[in-house]
């Protein structure tokens, strides 16, 4: 009986209230545990009785009663209570070493103890099973939550059906498979008619496109096993079956097993209906299609936009240098505008592509060890034209460790910071770039002498499309630069931060990248000779 045996997740029986197959044996075991718990406290009770000379020492037995109730439940607690009454009568109440109690006051005390113990054990065990049910509910909710999260993250219908199959399998604690008869995008789902016994396949074919709503049980003669077939949720959309392999079940049990499995499937199907599987499947399919469309757009944009840009910039650069144009300052300045605007457009296209790539799939960095000064020099060289009106000063430590980073991502990120520094500070001012070691990171800081930051900007500048209120109308920008930079640096396992400069107006943006270890800074023995 593969389905029903020892299934702790069974929904029809709240946990903690007898889910064992042989209840009497478990009760006996719990009673024994209750007795032992009570006996363990007997020396303490006697000690209290002798040393303090109190007659009502039996009250101490409430402790094992509560312990037994909490740990093993009602049976155990009642046994502990009765044992407590008996041992009290035997050891404490006159005449001792006899179960008889002669003093009416003692009889009264014992009766009160027994009643209190019984009530306590009942209350404790109720509390215990309530806690167990709550825990069970929490587990179920967590499972359901994980399931729905998996559904919403799925990027293909196949993933959704795999999730459903796993979810229902966990609920039933047995072998469940899903067979889709239509609506399967590529027919790649795990189970097909070829995978199931011939009798099951025949039954499905016979049921055709409009199967009855309820379940049916099919016996497979060859393996002596029974299969329960249950059509999919009563919703339009993909159709198919839950197939549950019941294994070999005696005819007499079959009805009960079937009822139980059906009840669990009812629950599972209700959940699926609530989660609106049809929409989820459609959305996953849509996500898959739009992702491939986006990749195609990114690819063709970079070719389709850059090629005309290359012709424009190349032609304009020749015009700007040609004698008739160069001799006329007005014409020369126009030609230069074409060149510089083309460069700017190219930079914006690069940012758009970077942003699209980040949103689509994230970046896959290929980190290597980089000489920090190489990284900084490359970024400065790439942004030479943008910073042409500024004074650029470099302060790079002599013996900085190498950094772990993807060269392209790190250079682009640093370049975007230089871009910003040049854009948001007056020409003629200083842009200083410095690098120093900070713990197991290397910090590269870009300082400008521009507007600086207010608190709102400091908090939000790394957001996609955010632009500071003070520059929004005066300076062109996409609001993507810092977001891309922080995404690239994050992909390199680095950190980025922004702050107003401490001693003067201006902004300081700092990138931290992981430093190489001592071993990575050393050639293996004798290698450099």
């Amino acid at each position, binding site marked *: 009986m593969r389905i029903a045996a020892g299934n702790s997740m069974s929904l029809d029986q709240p946990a903690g209230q007898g889910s064992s197959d042989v209840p009497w044996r478990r009760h006996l075991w719990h009673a024994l545990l209750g007795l032992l718990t009570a006996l363990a406290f007997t020396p303490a009770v006697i000690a209290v009785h002798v040393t303090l000379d109190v007659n009502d020492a039996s009250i101490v037995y409430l402790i094992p009663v509560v312990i037994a109730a909490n740990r093993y439940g009602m049976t155990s607690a009642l046994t502990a209570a009765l044992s407590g009454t008996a041992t009290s009568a035997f050891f404490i109440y006159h005449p001792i070493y006899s179960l008889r109690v002669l003093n009416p006051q003692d009889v009264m005390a014992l009766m009160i103890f027994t009643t209190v113990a019984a009530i306590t054990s009942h209350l404790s065990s109720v509390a215990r099973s309530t806690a167990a049910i709550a825990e069970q509910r929490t587990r179920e909710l967590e499972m359901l939550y994980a399931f729905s999260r998996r559904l919403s993250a799925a990027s293909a219908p196949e993933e959704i059906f795999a999730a459903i199959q796993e979810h229902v399998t966990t609920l039933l604690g047995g072998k469940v498979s899903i067979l889709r008869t239509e609506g399967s995008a590529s027919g790649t789902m795990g189970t097909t008619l070829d995978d199931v016994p011939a009798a099951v396949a025949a039954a499905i074919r016979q049921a055709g496109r409009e199967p009855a709503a309820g379940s049916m049980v099919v016996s497979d003669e060859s393996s002596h096993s029974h299969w329960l077939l249950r059509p999919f949720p009563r919703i339009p959309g993909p159709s198919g079956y839950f197939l549950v392999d019941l294994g070999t079940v005696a005819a007499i049990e079959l009805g009960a097993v079937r009822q139980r499995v059906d009840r669990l499937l009812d629950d599972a199907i209700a959940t699926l209906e609530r989660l609106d599987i049809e929409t989820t499947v459609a959305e996953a399919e849509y996500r898959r299609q739009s992702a491939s469309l986006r990749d195609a757009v990114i690819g063709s944009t970079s070719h389709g936009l850059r090629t005309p840009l290359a012709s424009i910039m*190349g*032609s304009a650069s020749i015009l700007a240098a040609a004698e008739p144009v160069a001799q006329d300052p007005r014409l020369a300045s126009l030609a230069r505008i074409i060149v510089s605007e083309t460069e700017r457009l190219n930079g914006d296209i690069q940012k758009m592509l970077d942003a699209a790539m980040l949103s689509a799939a994230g970046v896959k960095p290929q980190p290597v060890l980089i000489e920090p000064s*190489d*990284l900084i020099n490359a970024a400065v060289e790439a942004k030479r034209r943008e910073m042409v009106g500024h004074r650029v000063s470099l302060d790079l430590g002599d013996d900085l460790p190498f950094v772990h980073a993807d060269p392209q991502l790190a*250079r682009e990120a640093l370049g975007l910071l230089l871009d910003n520094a040049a854009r948001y500070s007056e020409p003629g001012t200083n842009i200083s770039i410095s690098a120093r070691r900070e713990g197991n990171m290397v910090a590269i800081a870009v300082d400008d002498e521009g507007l600086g930051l207010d608190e709102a900007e400091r908090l939000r500048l790394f957001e996609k499309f955010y632009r500071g209120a003070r520059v929004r109308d005066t300076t062109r920008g996409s609001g993507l630069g810092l977001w891309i930079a922080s995404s690239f640096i994050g992909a390199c396992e680095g950190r980025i931060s922004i702050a107003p400069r401490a001693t003067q107006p201006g902004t300081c943006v700092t990138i931290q990248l992981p430093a190489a270890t001592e071993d990575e800074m050393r050639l293996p023995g004798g290698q450099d000779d």
Partner: protein
Amino acid sequence: MTSPAPNVLVVEDEPQMRRFLRAGFELDGFQVHEAETAAAGVRLATLRPFDLIIVDLGLPDKDGSHVVERVRSWSTVPMIVLSVRSHEDEKVRLLDTGADDYVVKPFGMAELLARTRAALRRKSPASVLQPIVGVGPLSIDLAHRIVERQGVRIQLTPKEFRLLQILAQHAGKVVTHQHLLREIWGAAHIDAAHYLRILVRKIRKKIEVNPTQPAILLTELGVGYRLAAPRDQHAGT
């Protein structure tokens, strides 16, 4: 660039690109020949010798790297690749295939001409026979294995000299990490790029005025290293 006008073959499918390349090269005294496809480019290159070949990477029939590979199998003609993509991996692949340089679109004509001059200079007979390569204040005597800065001899370990020697033999051209690692440490250490970083840092401390602002041993980030253009033929870059 006097006497016979140098011949340049432009392999490019976009008509606008061909027009501006033609104008730019002709204004600089080149004679320009054009091909629209990879197949036509390779065929033209076999028919007559060129001084320079410009190859676009995205050709309609085959990838531009195919042209580089085919032509390089029989010719040492300088080849410069144009591409819209700027991935380091691709630069490395093209340089290892035999391209001399790599220019990312969009670019200005002045930049392409500067790269062209550098590539032509490397192939000129004068540079091939040069036993002493002079770069800035540095002179590298390849025959006697002596390196001097402003007349003062610099002590280098064998591996340090080997690296400078390889770069000097390709002076002005980027030599990829893989190429250098294979030559210096052997094929087994082709992935140990940090050996190279450490060695370069040591050399820079010996030869550069400011090792963090190198003027002689230059880095092409993510691709390789190159020696700055040699002093003797330093002409207008």
